[in-house]
C-alpha cells in the first residue's frame, strides 16, 4: 500500500497527493497490540480516528481544517455513520502535524483546499469509523464469550442478539483499544446511510455566538509579546534601512527586528503599542526592478499573449483554424479578469515560541502540514523538535492553505527572542498588500458558424498567470499549468460541458511579479465568465435562445445538462419574468460537481443592478449535509459577486494600491439576493461543495445584465464601468 514516504528533513517536507490514500491506509493498520494509545485525558484511542471516554463521549479526530465551510461536522458525520455511535455524544479534535509525522501520517492529508475535505477523504474516514465499530463489537463479544457475529451496535450500544445483553462503547473501549485493527472493513451501501445526507446541526456553533471561540488572533500565552510587521510594499523588494532608535522609547516597545531581508517588525507588550510604533518607524525600502511594473504594463503583456504563436493546449478536436477561416459568420470577444485578494475577516497571524531545542507554532491554517513545513524551514530545527497547533480560522478562502509566509515571519521574529512567545498579527493593510492574489487572465474567444447558424468552431485563448509556476512548479506538465483550464478540460473533475466540432482551448502563460494564489474557486471563476458569457454572445449572434443554443451542444454531457435544466425549470426560463426582471444562465463542471445558476436581475438607470433571485443547482454526487451545502452555495455567491462587482487589486509602481475595505469592498446584506438551492445529488461520485458553485453566479448575472441592457461587459470588476450592486 505504501507508495511513497514523506521526506522529513527540514528543507523539504513535501507530500505528494499520491501519498494521501496510502498514508491513511497505513494509519489504519498500525498494529497496536496490547499497548493502548491514549488521548491527553487518558481515554483509550480505539484507532487514529476515534477516542472513546468512559462516559461514552466519542471524540472524532479531524485532520482537515474548519474555516466556516462545515467540514468538521461533515467529516464527523462520515466517521459516525460507520461507527454507529450516539451523535449527541460526538465531539471533535484536531490531531497535530507533529503527531501525524510521528505516526506516519495516520490521518492522511491535512490540506483543506480544492473542495477536497470530504471528497478526497470519504473512504478512509468511513473506514476509520467502521474499523472502530468492529473492534468495539469484538471487545464486547470477547467479554461475553460469544461470537462477534451475534452482536450488533447502534447508537453507541452493543447488543448480543440471542441473549439480549447490552453494553456501551464507553465500557468496552479500553478492551477494544488493545485489539489488532481488522483488515479493510466493508462499508455501508449509501442506501443504508442514516447520518450521511442528514442536515444535522453543526457541532461548532455555540461558541461563535458568545465570543468564546478562540481564533488564532485571540490566542494568549503566558509571557507572550505582540508583533506588528511591515513587508516591502513592492513584492521582491528589500529593507534598505530603518531607524529603530526613533521608536524604541515608545510605550511598551521591546524589540525592533528585521524579518528576513524584506520586512521589519516591532515587538511590544500589546499589539496596539507595536502597531503604533511601527507606524512611526522610518523605513527605507530597496524596491528593485519590480517598482517599474503597473497594471497597464501587465495588461499589455497579457494582451500580447492573446495572439502569440506559442501556447499550451488543453482541449482540442477538429481543426479550429480551418473552421474559423471557412466560417459563414464569426464573432470575437476579449475578456479580462483582475487580481483579487482573499481578505478573510481575520487578518493573517501566527504565534511562535522558539528555543534552540524546540519550536512551537499556533496558527489558523488550512494545511497543518504546510504550516509545519514552514516552521521547520524557518526554525532550522528537525521535525521531532517542532510542533504546530491548529487554531480556529476566521476564514480561509485559499489564503491560508498553500502559503504560510506569516508562519515564517512569526518564527523568524521568535528566533530573535528565544523562549518568549510572540504573536504576529498583520494589519488589514498588510493583508491587502501582501496577498497571494487571484491570478490575472485575459481571454480571446472566436466562434465560427455555418450558414445555418450552427456553431462549427470555438477557439478560446487564455493569456495570463500560472499559479502552479509560482507555487508548485513540480506540478507543471512539461511547462503547462493544468489548473489554468479548470472547467475547460476534455474530462476529469473540471470537464468542458459542450461538444463543438472544431475546438481549441489554449493558454499563453504570462507571469508577473505579483504572487498568485488559490482564491476560492481558483481559475474556474474567470473561465466560467469567459465561456458562459461568450456562449450567451454566440447564442444571440446565432439568433437563438441561450438555453436552446446550449442544449444543442450538450447531448453528450447529461450531468451538465441536468443541472442547467433544473435551474431553467425552477426559474421559469421561457416563461415571462416579472416586469423589469431579466434572466441569465450559466453552468460548469467544477471540483467534480456539476453546477448551474439562473439569475434574475433588474437594472435601474442603466447601472444600478438589483439581483432579485439566483436559482442554483449542484450535483455533488453525494450530499453529506444538505443544510450546510445550501449555506456554501449562498456564501460562495457573496464571495464571487463581491469579486464581480467590487473587487480589484491594481498595481502601481510595483505595489498593490488597495489597502482596506474602503477601496476593496465586499457585499453587505442589502445587496444579498434570495438564493434558492437545488441539491440534486445523483450518487456514484463525490463532488466538492465549498468552491464549485462560486463560478456560476457571475456569468449568470452578466448574461442577465445583457438581457436587461443590451450591453456586454467584458472587463471587471463592474465598478470600473460605474455599475453598482444595490
Amino acid at each position: 500500500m505504501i507508495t511513497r514516504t514523506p521526506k522529513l528533513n527540514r528543507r523539504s517536507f513535501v507530500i505528494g497527493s499520491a501519498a494521501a490514500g496510502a498514508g491513511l491506509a497505513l494509519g489504519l493498520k498500525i498494529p497496536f497490540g496490547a499497548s493502548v494509545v491514549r488521548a491527553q485525558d487518558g481515554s483509550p484511542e480505539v484507532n487514529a480516528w476515534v477516542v472513546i471516554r468512559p462516559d461514552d463521549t466519542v471524540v472524532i479526530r479531524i485532520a482537515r481544517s474548519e474555516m466556516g465551510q462545515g467540514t468538521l461536522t461533515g467529516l464527523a458525520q462520515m466517521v459516525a455513520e460507520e461507527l454507529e455511535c450516539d451523535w449527541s455524544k460526538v465531539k471533535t479534535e484536531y490531531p497535530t502535524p507533529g503527531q501525524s509525522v510521528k505516526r506516519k501520517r495516520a490521518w492522511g492529508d491535512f490540506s483543506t483546499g480544492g473542495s477536497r475535505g470530504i471528497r478526497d477523504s470519504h473512504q478512509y474516514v468511513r473506514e476509520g469509523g467502521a474499523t472502530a465499530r468492529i473492534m468495539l463489537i469484538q471487545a464486547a463479544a470477547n467479554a461475553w464469550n460469544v461470537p462477534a457475529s451475534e452482536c450488533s451496535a447502534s447508537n453507541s450500544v452493543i447488543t448480543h442478539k440471542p441473549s439480549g445483553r447490552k453494553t456501551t462503547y464507553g465500557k468496552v473501549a479500553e478492551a477494544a483499544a488493545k485489539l489488532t485493527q481488522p483488515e479493510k472493513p466493508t462499508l455501508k451501501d449509501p442506501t443504508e446511510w442514516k447520518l450521511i445526507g442528514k442536515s444535522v446541526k453543526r457541532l461548532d456553533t455555540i461558541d461563535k455566538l458568545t465570543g468564546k471561540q478562540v481564533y488564532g488572533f485571540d490566542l494568549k500565552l503566558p509571557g507572550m509579546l505582540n508583533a506588528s510587521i511591515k513587508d516591502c510594499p513592492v513584492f521582491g523588494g528589500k529593507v534598505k534601512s530603518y531607524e529603530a532608535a526613533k521608536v524604541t522609547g515608545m510605550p511598551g516597545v521591546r524589540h525592533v527586528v528585521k524579518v528576513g531581508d524584506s520586512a521589519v517588525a516591532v515587538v511590544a507588550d500589546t499589539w496596539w503599542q507595536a502597531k503604533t510604533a511601527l507606524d512611526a518607524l522610518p523605513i527605507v525600502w530597496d524596491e528593485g526592478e519590480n517598482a517599474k511594473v503597473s497594471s497597464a504594463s501587465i495588461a499589455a503583456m497579457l494582451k500580447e499573449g492573446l495572439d502569440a504563436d506559442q501556447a499550451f493546449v488543453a482541449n482540442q478536436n477538429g481543426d479550429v483554424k480551418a473552421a474559423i477561416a471557412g466560417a459563414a459568420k464569426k464573432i470575437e470577444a476579449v475578456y479580462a479578469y483582475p487580481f483579487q485578494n482573499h481578505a478573510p475577516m481575520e487578518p493573517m497571524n501566527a504565534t511562535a515560541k522558539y528555543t534552540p531545542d524546540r519550536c512551537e507554532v499556533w496558527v489558523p491554517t488550512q494545511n497543518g502540514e504546510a504550516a509545519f513545513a514552514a516552521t521547520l524551514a524557518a526554525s532550522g530545527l528537525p521535525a521531532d523538535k517542532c510542533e504546530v497547533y491548529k487554531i480556529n480560522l476566521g476564514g480561509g478562502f485559499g489564503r491560508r492553505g498553500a502559503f504560510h509566509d506569516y508562519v515564517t515571519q512569526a518564527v523568524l521574529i521568535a528566533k530573535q527572542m528565544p523562549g518568549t512567545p510572540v504573536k504576529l498579527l498583520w494589519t488589514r493593510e498588510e493583508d491587502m498588500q501582501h496577498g497571494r492574489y487571484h491570478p490575472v487572465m485575459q481571454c480571446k474567444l472566436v466562434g465560427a458558424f455555418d450558414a445555418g447558424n450552427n456553431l462549427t468552431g470555438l477557439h478560446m485563448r487564455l493569456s495570463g498567470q500560472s499559479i502552479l509556476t509560482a507555487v508548485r512548479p513540480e506540478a507543471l506538465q512539461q511547462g503547462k499549468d493544468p489548473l489554468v483550464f479548470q472547467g475547460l478540460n476534455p474530462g476529469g473533475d473540471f470537464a468542458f460541458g459542450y461538444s463543438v466540432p472544431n475546438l481549441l482551448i489554449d493558454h499563453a502563460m504570462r507571469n508577473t511579479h505579483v504572487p498568485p494564489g488559490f482564491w476560492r474557486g481558483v481559475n474556474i471563476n474567470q473561465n466560467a465568465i469567459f465561456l458562459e458569457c461568450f456562449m450567451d454572445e454566440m447564442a444571440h449572434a446565432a439568433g437563438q435562445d441561450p438555453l436552446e443554443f446550449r442544449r444543442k451542444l450538450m447531448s453528450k454531457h447529461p450531468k451538465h445538462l441536468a443541472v442547467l435544466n433544473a435551474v431553467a425549470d425552477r426559474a421559469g426560463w421561457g416563461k415571462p419574468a416579472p416586469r423589469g426582471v431579466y434572466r441569465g444562465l450559466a453552468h460548469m463542471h467544477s471540483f467534480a460537481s456539476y453546477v448551474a445558476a439562473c439569475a434574475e436581475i433588474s437594472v435601474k438607470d442603466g447601472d444600478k443592478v438589483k439581483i432579485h433571485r439566483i436559482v442554483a443547482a449542484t450535483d455533488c454526487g453525494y450530499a453529506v449535509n444538505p443544510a450546510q451545502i445550501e449555506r456554501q452555495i449562498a456564501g460562495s455567491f457573496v464571495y464571487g459577486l463581491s469579486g464581480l462587482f467590487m473587487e480589484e487589486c491594481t498595481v502601481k509602481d510595483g505595489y498593490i494600491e488597495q489597502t482596506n475595505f474602503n477601496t476593496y469592498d465586499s457585499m453587505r446584506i442589502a445587496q444579498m439576493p434570495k438564493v434558492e438551492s437545488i441539491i440534486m445529488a445523483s450518487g456514484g461520485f463525490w463532488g466538492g461543495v465549498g468552491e464549485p458553485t462560486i463560478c456560476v453566479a457571475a456569468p449568470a448575472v452578466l448574461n442577465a445584465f445583457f438581457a436587461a441592457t443590451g450591453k456586454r461587459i467584458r472587463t471587471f470588476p463592474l465598478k470600473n464601468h460605474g455599475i453598482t450592486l444595490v
Partner: protein
Amino acid sequence: MARLTINGKTLEVNVNPSTPLLWAIREQVGLTGTKYGCGIAQCGACTVHLDGAAVRSCVLPVAAAEGKKITTIEGLANGGALNKVQKAWLDHEVPQCGYCQSGMIMAVAALLKEKPKPTDAEIDARITNICRCGTFQQVREAIHAAAKA
C-alpha cells in the same frame, strides 16, 4: 489610565487615552470576543454597545467611552441565558467561520432594541457589517425570528 464600565464591571485600564476601545477591551481587559477586521470602521467586526447603541470600537478612543456603559458580546447573554438574537442565531445556524458574528450579533441586538420589528429595508439600512463567508441569508432569517421571539 482610563476608567471603563464593561459588562457591568468597572475597571481601570492602563492605556493611552487615544487607544481605540477595541484594543483596550482585547488587550487590557482580556475579552477577545470583539474582533479586529479593518481598523477603519468599515467592516463592523468590532461592534460593541455604548449606552445601548452599536458603535465600531476600532476607531473610538478609550477616552470617549469613559463614563459610558460598554457591552461586549461576552456581556450579551443575561446570566448565562442566551440573548434572543444569539438564540435565533443558534436555531438558524447563522455562523460559518464565525469571526464577524460577534459584531453582527451586537449590531442586530442594538437594532432590535430600537426597532423591535424591523422591516427588510430597515435591516438593509442598519446592518452593514461585512461577512466574507456570506451568511446574509441566514442573518436576515434569524433577525426576523429574533424579532418574533
